[in-house]
């Protein structure tokens, strides 16, 4: 009851304001009449009584105003009025308005843009996939290994059968394939997926269908494919009758059963897929053999979509429990192997986990940029407030409450930042795909999602409010605390009167200098880090090393023929003039392709009871160590005689030799790998295998010839251009078999750069935003100094009149600027020492307190600030004392 009454009253005072005001008038008038009557009764004459009544009542207008306040809707009533007034003020000084809005647009826009990137990467890495908040990465764990690894197909099927909290398990294995079109063959990128892939992700093919549940079973029984929209458009010109056509994938005809919708790029951040085939076709795409029934072969990367309302923890516990049961049931293959779930952005299977920390650091940086921009606007508003002193004084004298003035000034600020926020969103919209530009080009088309949605809007609104509070509150409070009498009396700004204000403005500039120093240090650190990464020693000689691959799988070559072809080709490649050496290997460093690993046993090394030693290895041809530049510490290289019929041999790295033979010479020792016994014939120096940041780990090499494969990578050492090498290689391949073509030749440097791409992103982004911050801070310093000079013209003129020379004045102004800068840098350095620690995890081999970086940042800051001060200082030195004193 009560609240309905209240609501009625509120609505009335808001929308029937005139009626309410009229009633108020009547009510107070009635009171005055009664009072007048009383005074008349006491013997006054009517005229006098009326005046006396008015006197005794006090200020009628003020009381009316107080009654309106009492209604509690005053605040709302004032808003339209304030907005109208605010807009009028903006129009009156367009220069000021444009400058402030521009500053804020940059600040808010930068924040919104970086936020869309983060949001896209974290929440919606896969466009079109529904309910991504419930999609988790499925991965295996290994005792003693910190990273997440693939899982096996039988384990995957058991998880699917036994977990109740999970809607669907989705398997995916990235694969390349040779796509033959008529005479031509080219490579295509796609995935082997479980049959539920499209249904579970909520992707509806625009033509045809996805896969059906029975297509998960039957060895090579379902040669079918779904093609991507882009593939459909480019290769089939959008032909609607494409369904039912066949295409040769790795030599096997596959029937096209569906076309994925436009905008679906697959589920691997940064790449876009061309085709999908059922996982049951694994053998066709994997030269290492048939794995669908082998619990020990772990090759599936996958996803799990949780049921609604299930938390990640609950689901994680369930899959771990199922994995535990499997461990007990199949100890031979599963001992020490678990299963876990990760949020998508922590996926070890693609680049997100590397890019995300960088983006978070960048978000911090753009927030600082926003603060700096706000400080600039605050400074501008302070100057403006000084100009509006008279207006404010009059308002206060007329009875405006201080809160009323505060409200007015905040509304004006909010108008500024709202316009800027709209502009900022526009900036963010333009920049939503900028990350694609910043990321270095990759071999596959790149897609990084950015999207303006309600979260971005909400974030921008929040940023807009924060900015308003930061920049409008300070001048507003200053104004509302104005000394009335003082302000009315002194019209001209003396230096004394303006001291408090100027201290405030200097404080703001101090903050700006400090924040931009901080950003400079941050940018400097990532530059140093990138430099360190580029110069990091991978353990082999990357300069002049090129890689490409030769895939005879899916052609008519059997292993025997393939092996012969490889030998012939290698001889020809080595003979190319300009090629120093060449060798094959099954894998190369710094790609997403995982190394093979095998359980080993070493005579004389007693494993802990539960220890299952599994070590990664590479299969290499003779000459591999010479070609890559990994030195052999002792023993010999593989030879062509180390073939299938010879005794198995291995070369171990230093870490492995030290761990399992404890300093004794490893050469000649026996090594049990899976079920084969090998003799160690050499020890190689440690090198980096997966990334530059990894710690030294045990690793070994076995001869490629002892387990021939149709898929090999070619390592070539040459000082020639990659394109030259590629065409020479192409000629040699064609001369051996005209049906084959060469693949792209990449330099090892390219691969390393690609691996360091997140560091490139960090350098680019922090560089841009650091520069922006520096620019804004310079504007701030310039603004404060030139304002100070213009305000103290008389003071400076007096000094000249008393004998100060131009250099004296120059020195005076410059030293003031210097103190500002020094204070800011000191504060910034203190903050940087504390904050850059948080950047530790994106830095490589650089201390967050790297003195060189700090010194460089200081130098830049000093240079920029002194140039910002120079102009005002020169103006001060040129002051004409006579004019200054007369004014």
């Amino acid at each position: 009851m009560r609240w309905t009454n209240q609501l009625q009253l509120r609505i009335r005072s808001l929308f029937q304001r005139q009626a309410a005001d009229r009633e108020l008038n009547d009510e107070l008038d009635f009171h005055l009449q009664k009072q007048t009557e009383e005074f008349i009764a006491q013997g006054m004459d009517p005229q006098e009584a009326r005046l006396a009544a008015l006197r005794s009542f006090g200020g009628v207008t003020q009381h009316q105003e107080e009654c309106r306040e009492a209604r509690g809707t005053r605040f709302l009533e004032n808003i339209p009025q304030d907005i109208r007034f605010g807009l009028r003020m903006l129009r009156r000084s367009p220069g000021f308005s444009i400058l402030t809005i521009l500053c804020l647009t940059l600040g808010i826009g930068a924040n919104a843009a970086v936020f869309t990137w983060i949001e896209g990467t974290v929440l919606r890495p896969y466009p079109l996939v529904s309910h991504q908040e419930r999609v988790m990465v499925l991965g295996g764990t290994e005792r003693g290994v910190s990273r997440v690894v693939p899982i096996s197909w039988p384990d995957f099927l058991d998880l699917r059968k036994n977990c109740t909290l999970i809607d669907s398990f989705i398997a995916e294995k990235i694969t390349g394939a040779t796509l033959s079109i008529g005479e031509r063959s080219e490579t295509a990128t796609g995935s082997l997926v479980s049959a539920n892939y499209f249904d579970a992700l909520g992707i509806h093919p625009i033509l045809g269908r996805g896969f059906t549940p029975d297509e998960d079973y039957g060895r090579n029984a379902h040669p079918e494919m779904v093609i991507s929209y882009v593939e459909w458009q480019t290769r089939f010109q959008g032909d609607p009758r494409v369904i039912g056509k066949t295409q040769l994938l790795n030599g096997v005809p596959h029937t096209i059963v569906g076309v994925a919708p436009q905008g679906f790029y697959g589920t691997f951040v940064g790449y876009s897929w061309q085709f999908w085939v059922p996982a049951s076709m694994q053998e066709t795409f994997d030269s290492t053999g048939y794995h669908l029934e082998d619990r020990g072969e772990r090759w599936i990367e996958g996803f799990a979509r949780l049921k609604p309302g299930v938390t990640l923890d609950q689901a994680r516990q369930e899959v771990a429990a199922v994995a535990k049961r499997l461990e007990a049931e199949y100890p031979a293959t599963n001992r020490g192997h678990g299963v876990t779930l990760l949020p998508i952005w922590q996926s070890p299977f693609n680049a997100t986990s590397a890019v995300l920390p960088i983006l978070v650091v960048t978000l911090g940086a753009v927030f600082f940029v926003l603060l700096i921009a706000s400080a600039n606007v605050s400074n501008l508003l302070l100057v403006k407030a000084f100009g509006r002193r008279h207006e404010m004084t009059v308002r206060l004298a007329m009875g405006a409450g201080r809160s009323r003035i505060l409200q007015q000034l905040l509304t004006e600020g909010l108008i500024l930042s709202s316009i800027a926020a709209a502009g900022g969103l526009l900036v963010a919209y333009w920049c939503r795909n900028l990350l694609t530009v910043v990321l270095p080009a990759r071999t596959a088309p790149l897609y990084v999602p950015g999207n303006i949605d309600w979260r971005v809007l909400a974030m921008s609104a929040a940023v807009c409010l924060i900015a308003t509070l930061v920049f409008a509150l300070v001048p507003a409070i200053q104004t509302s605390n104005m000394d009335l009498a003082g302000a009315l009396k002194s019209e001209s700004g003396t230096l004394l009167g303006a001291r408090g204000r100027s201290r405030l403005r200097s404080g703001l500039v101090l903050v700006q200098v400090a924040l931009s120093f901080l950003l400079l240090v941050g940018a400097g650190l990532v530059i140093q880090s990138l430099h360190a990464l580029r110069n990091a020693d991978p353990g082999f000689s990357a300069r002049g090393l090129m890689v490409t691959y030769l895939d005879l799988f899916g052609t008519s070559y059997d292993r025997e023929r393939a092996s012969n072809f490889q030998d012939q080709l290698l001889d020809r490649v080595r003979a190319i003039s300009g090629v120093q050496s060449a060798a094959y290997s099954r894998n190369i460093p710094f790609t997403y392709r995982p190394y093979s690993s095998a359980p080993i046993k070493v005579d004389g090394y007693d494993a802990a009871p539960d220890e299952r030693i599994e070590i990664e290895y590479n299969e290499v041809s003779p000459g591999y160590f010479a070609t890559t530049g990994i030195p052999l510490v002792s023993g010999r290289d593989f030879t062509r005689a180390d073939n299938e019929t010879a005794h198995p041999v291995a070369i171990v790295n230093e870490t492995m030799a030290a761990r399992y033979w404890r300093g004794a010479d490893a050469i000649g020792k026996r090594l049990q790998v899976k079920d084969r016994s090998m003799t160690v014939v050499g020890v190689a120096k440690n090198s980096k295998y997966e990334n530059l940041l990894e710690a030294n780990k045990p690793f070994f090499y076995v001869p490629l010839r002892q387990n021939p494969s149709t898929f090999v990578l070619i390592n070539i050492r040459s000082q020639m251009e990659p394109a030259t090498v590629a065409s020479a290689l192409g000629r040699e391949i064609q001369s051996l078999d005209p049906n084959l073509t060469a693949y792209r030749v990449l330099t090892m440097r390219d691969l390393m750069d690609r691996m360091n791409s997140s560091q490139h992103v960090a350098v680019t982004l922090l560089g841009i935003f650091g520069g922006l911050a520096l620019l804004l801070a310079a504007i701030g310093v310039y603004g404060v100094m030139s304002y100070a000079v213009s305000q103290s013209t008389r003071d400076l003129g007096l000094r000249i009149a008393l004998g100060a020379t131009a250099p004296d004045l120059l020195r005076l102004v410059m030293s003031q600027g210097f103190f500002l800068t020094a204070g800011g840098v000191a504060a910034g350095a203190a903050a940087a020492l504390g904050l850059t620690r948080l950047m530790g995890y994106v830095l490589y081999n650089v201390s967050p307190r790297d003195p060189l970086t700090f010194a460089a940042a200081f130098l830049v800051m000093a240079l920029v600030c002194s140039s910002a001060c120079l102009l005002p200082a020169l103006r001060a030195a040129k002051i004409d004392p006579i004019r200054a004193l007369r004014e």
Partner: protein
Amino acid sequence: MGKPTELVQGTLDLLILKTLALEPMHGWGIAQRIRQISKDVLQVNQGALYPALHRLEHQGWIRAKWGESDNNRRAKYYSLTADGSRYLREQQAQWNRLSGAIDLVLETN
């Protein structure tokens, strides 16, 4: 007659509600009634009275209605709502406790 005592902060609401508990009344009447009952000790400042009335109305403790005053003039009459009388009882009890406590403190040597 000595100088009228300044009203203790917050007691004006209580006095208004108490006055209205007797009968509906307009602003002028309320001021007069408070003065009379307190034997001229409590003087209500009109500047405070009307904002207080409007505030109480918006809080729902009292409601206003236009009516005829003694000599056929339109006047705004305030009356206590059901919520208001409950609120008054609570406030009065609280006041009694408070003034009792103050007395106790003052009388203790």
